């Protein structure tokens, strides 16, 4: 299973490296959202850092939706998913491979968005970087776990661009709240101050990674 998952990850990342379709949309939409949030809210310099967590997570979710969807659209082109499922691969390995590829791409996006937010909203992220990295990774895994599962459902629908946010956003509320709270706590008091929010993120990650592994076969096979 691990070998198959690695095969899926390396294939997805190779295609992304070659086409840069998800990365391009991450950069354009990420920069745009950070600029729009900053200009629209127009916070005074001393209040600006308070907005940083919500801007980071809102940008992350909206930008991430695009990239995760792309990962399954390429499986539908040329009926590639059927060819993969006709092989003896365990669908759980396909899920884990897609999940890891999404986590890597979303981490690249976070690495672009966080410095932008730091500049626009005057946040000293360097000081809190290790704790912030933990929070972002946990939120990333939770988002990707759920989004990978739902992207596989939505890609079969005609209105898939609408379907994914409609299905996904309500279920992402715990990640969003946990992510914003944990980021706020880490920026102002360190990792120790974010225990409760981190517990929410950890629980969400475990529940939806396990759910994805168990349910994926029923989602991708009719």
């Amino acid at each position, binding site marked *: 299973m691990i070998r198959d998952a690695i095969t899926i990850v390396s*294939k997805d990342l190779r295609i992304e490296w070659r086409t840069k379709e998800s990365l391009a949309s991450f950069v354009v939409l990420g920069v745009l959202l950070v600029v729009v949030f900053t200009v629209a809210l127009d916070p005074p310099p001393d209040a600006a850092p308070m907005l940083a967590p919500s801007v980071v997570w809102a940008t992350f979710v909206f930008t991430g939706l695009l990239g995760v969807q792309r990962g399954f659209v390429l499986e539908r082109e040329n009926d590639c998913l*059927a060819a993969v499922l006709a092989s003896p691969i365990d669908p759980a390995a396909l899920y884990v491979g897609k999940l890891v590829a999404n986590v890597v791409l979303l981490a690249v996006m976070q690495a672009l968005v966080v410095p932008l937010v730091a500049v626009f909203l005057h946040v000293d992220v360097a000081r809190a970087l290790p704790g912030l990295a933990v929070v972002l990774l946990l939120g990333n895994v939770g988002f990707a776990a759920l989004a990978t599962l739902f992207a596989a459902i939505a890609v079969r629908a005609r209105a898939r661009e609408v379907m994914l946010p409609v299905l996904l956003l309500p279920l992402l509320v715990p990640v969003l709240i946990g992510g914003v709270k944990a980021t706020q706590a880490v920026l102002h008091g360190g990792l120790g101050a974010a225990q409760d929010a981190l517990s929410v993120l950890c629980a969400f990650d475990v529940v939806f990674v396990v759910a994805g592994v168990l349910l994926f076969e029923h989602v991708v096979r009719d």
Partner: protein
Amino acid sequence: MLGPPIRAEGLRRDYAGTPVLAGVDLLVEAGELVVLLGSNGAGKTTLLRVLATLLRPSGGVLSLFGGDARAARRRIGYVGHESGCYADLTGAENLEFHAALHGVPSSRVSELLEWTGLSSAARRPLRTYSRGMSQRLALARALLHRPDLLLLDEPYSGLDPGAAARLDALLVSLRAAGHTILLTTHDLARVVPLSTRVAILHRGRIAWTQAGAVDPVVVASAYDAVVVA
């Protein structure tokens, strides 16, 4: 696992309550080349996808090599309407990816690229391939793990006469090598002479079948009687 490559009894598959396969009875023995004919919407693609374990049957009995679907998957090669290969990967990368999923050594990739005449195009992205080249790559993909059963869904669709003649030769060589082949087509004049058995699928059921040296004229009359009438 013992048993014929395909044994289907009363196989059914519904889509949103509408029966597409309405009780297919089909037995395919090892080494056969079975041609499945039928009009558009007869259920040929659905039947092949069920046999390839991509769709679950809604009812009936399906036995592949006498065992369950997951175990049988290692012995089945499937080529659908599309290539099943990634447009942004090269021909060789596509085959290496599927070789890894099947646990097949990468030496098999170059062997199949040569066999399908794609060695010179192996380092080009799939999106630059013609329809005939994509079809040959799909066939190479399906053959990577030396499957005992090959399921081909309209493999002649979109091929020019040269590519179709090349596919004829590939099918003959595959059968000679002991593969069991089930293919769907509308081009009965081309494929029937290569077959060991012809079956006509109509309204989700096998409405006519004949084994042995099948005369294309007999098949055409049967097709007219079953489908056109």
